[in-house]
């Protein structure tokens, strides 16, 4: 379990994360939802330690990450796979080199074993025959797949995804969402996903945390969320016509 306890984070005068507490469980897809600018990325980067936090604690399976020194933190980071919003693939490396990079850096595998692992990961995300391509030659969806392959190449215990389907068409989005969910169950990772996409919530929201202006506003799962009476949450959930229609048909049915 990842426990986030009362963390706060400011940039200068600006408070971005305010006294935030939440737990994330293993083998589940934990979603953090909220509007653009509500602090999702900052929260995620604070949990993984890219941003230092001002106060509070972050605990990875009983290990107090927020109080470790650089060296101990590095060891935990090797157990984390992270998918960045734009993919963050290394531009000057091919897909294969990107996925192989963490193995080159930290594993004692032989070259053949590494290539085998790379191909396994690329197969797993359905990205075959692209080993020799550079990131600039990939479509948005392929970039995300390659980035997921890189994130899982080291067999992470924890998987963090920042808006995994931003910039993708609805069909590709669902494929990516489902892929992340399958990987979570298959490898029993603790998975945390930032999103503002209600489709993802309905599809894969095992646990949903709603963040509003840096504050944890609501939490529940994908079923609770449609029936919550929290006005701010409803404003977010039912922002689109599609969701409003869904709500009215549901209401009609229950009548």
């Amino acid at each position, binding site marked *: 379990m990842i426990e986030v306890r009362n963390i706060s984070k400011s940039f200068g005068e600006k408070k971005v994360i305010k006294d935030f507490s939440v737990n994330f469980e293993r083998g589940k897809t934990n979603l953090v939802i909220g509007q653009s600018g509500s602090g999702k990325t900052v929260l995620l*980067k604070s949990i993984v330690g*890219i941003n230092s936090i001002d106060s509070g604690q972050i605990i990875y399976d009983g290990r107090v990450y927020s109080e470790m020194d650089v060296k101990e933190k590095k*060891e935990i980071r*090797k157990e984390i796979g992270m998918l*960045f919003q734009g993919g*963050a693939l290394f531009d000057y490396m091919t897909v294969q080199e990107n996925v192989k990079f963490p193995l*080159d*850096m930290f594993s004692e595998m032989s070259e053949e074993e590494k290539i085998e692992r790379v191909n396994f990961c690329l197969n797993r995300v359905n990205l075959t025959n692209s080993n020799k391509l550079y990131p600039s030659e990939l479509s948005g969806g392929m970039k995300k797949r390659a980035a997921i392959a890189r994130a899982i190449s080291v067999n992470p215990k924890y998987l963090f995804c920042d808006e995994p389907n931003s910039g993708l068409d609805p069909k590709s989005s669902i494929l990516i969402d489902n892929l992340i969910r399958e990987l979570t169950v298959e490898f029993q990772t603790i998975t945390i996903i930032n999103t503002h996409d209600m489709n993802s919530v309905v599809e894969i929201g095992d646990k949903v945390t709603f963040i509003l202006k840096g504050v944890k506003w609501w939490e529940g799962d994908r079923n609770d969320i449609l029936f919550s009476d929290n006005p701010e949450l409803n404003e977010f959930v039912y922002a689109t016509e599609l969701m409003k229609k869904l709500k009215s048909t549901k209401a009609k049915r229950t009548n």
Partner: protein
Amino acid sequence: MHAFNYIGRYFILLRYVFVKPEKRSIYWKMIIREIDVLGLDSLGITLIISIFVGAVITIQTASNIDNPLYPNYLVGFASRESIILEFSPTIVSLILAGKVGSRIASEIGTMRITEQIDALEMMGVNSAGYLILPKIIASVFINPFLVIISMFVSIWGGWIASVTTGLVSSSNYIYGLQYGFKPFTITYALIKTVVFAFIITTVSSCEGYYTRGSSLDVGRASTRAVVYSSIVILLFNLILTQLLLI
């Protein structure tokens, strides 16, 4: 205050750059790549500038010492001194600050704003060391070669100019080139080159590494990289000349 902050973060970054690499073989690969993109890619511009400026220096020197009291082999002597002492080490380094500095800052700046540096950190890689150390090593190694090549090509350009314009005869020019030659001038030039290479790579990397924001900020960072590294080069040119020649 701004300047102090700036200098402070430069030294903080350097401290991270010079820690033990996680894996030597990967750093080696990066060094080879940087030698190619930072060094060999700059050969063409170095050659072109050197041949033209060498010719101009020689013609200007000839027109300045156009006095019957001075022997005209002095043209070869004076051109050699200008080229070895100042043109090749300093001006070529300034040109490289423009070419290599902007390239380094925009490369690292882009990696910063597209979260590639965060990705490295998340993997447990020391991003400053991995990205910057190979650039420093490559430049410090390759720039002296560029400068030595520049010296030869400039002097050759000067020879072409003096022969084709008939200002100095070939044999006088060559006699002048050898006249009163002090090998220490080469040492002095190479010391400057190495220091300048370090300045270019570290100042530009620092600009790139601390970029925040959008692609516009990457552009600004790369402009600042060129301006700041040029200024620091000029400052150290003065300091080193005082220390080494006087």
